């Protein structure tokens, strides 16, 4: 009979360093100034977050427009037990939020306190960090208005 198998924690971790390019660079730089930018398509609709190409026509896009930091929850999922790498250390919702002025939804966090506070169609607004760094984590949404 052999001895029991050894076990050890093993952490696989690597940090990607991604160049943002001119369009996404402006999106992230604006976050530092507490502004959320979308990009306007030829037909006038606005994609948020801003992106570099039209997902339907593959045309280059670079007309950035500011949208509101308020909007509507279109869909959501409650996270009752956040894991270590998730954005909040207490229960929260991942939600698809359509910001006022945007024609698409963005995936972000709603710090709602409890699942009972969440509803499809609810209004939310951004709560900005005291110190912003130009990252998508510079804000979370909270129920609002």
């Amino acid at each position, binding site marked *: 009979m052999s001895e029991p198998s*050894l076990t050890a924690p093993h*952490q696989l971790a690597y940090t*990607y360093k991604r160049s943002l390019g001119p369009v996404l660079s402006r999106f992230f730089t604006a976050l530092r100034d507490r502004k959320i930018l979308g990009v306007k398509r030829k037909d006038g609709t606005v994609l948020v977050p801003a992106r570099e190409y039209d997902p339907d026509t593959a045309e280059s896009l670079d007309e950035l427009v500011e949208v509101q930091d308020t909007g509507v929850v279109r869909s959501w999922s409650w996270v009752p037990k956040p894991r270590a790498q998730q954005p909040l250390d207490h229960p929260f919702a991942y939600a698809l939020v359509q910001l006022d002025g945007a024609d698409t939804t963005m995936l972000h966090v709603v710090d709602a306190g409890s699942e009972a506070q969440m509803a499809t169609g609810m209004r939310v607004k951004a709560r900005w960090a005291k110190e912003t760094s130009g990252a998508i984590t510079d804000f979370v949404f909270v129920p609002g208005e």
Partner: protein
Amino acid sequence: MSEDPIEVFLQPIQLDYDYTAGVSASRFLRAIEQGKLLGQRCPVDGRVYFPSRGSCPQHAVPFADDGAVELPDRGTIVTYSIVRVPSENIPLELPYITVQVLLDGADTVLMHVLDGDLDTVRMGLRVEAVWKPKEEWTTSLANILYFRPLDEPDADYDSYKEHI
């Protein structure tokens, strides 16, 4: 606060595992805690695999417990690479040399680092392991700090050519 545009985005990826070594690798690790290097001999063709493992990858047969072979901590560099680009998790001063060492009596190579001269590292160079102080030994291949050149003639190419 900086006014410079944000041009780079850092995306950390992290996965936390509990790794279970299994019977054979556990035996290997318990041996290296004692300063012993264990390989395993294939019962079909007699080749010695290092580090020891549970079965032969070529013949798909289990290695018997009595097939363990203790290997010396010296061998031959079969190939090497000079590393000039830093990695976050490798705290070595650049440039450094990674080597594939064929331990004497083994048929598979071990990846490690060489404390040696960039100008004289070469295939066939004879090397030996430099160990941590005994009181720091754990169940880890990191008990070997690095390899260093031996004052011996180079190994004959034919003796390692099938392991390059």
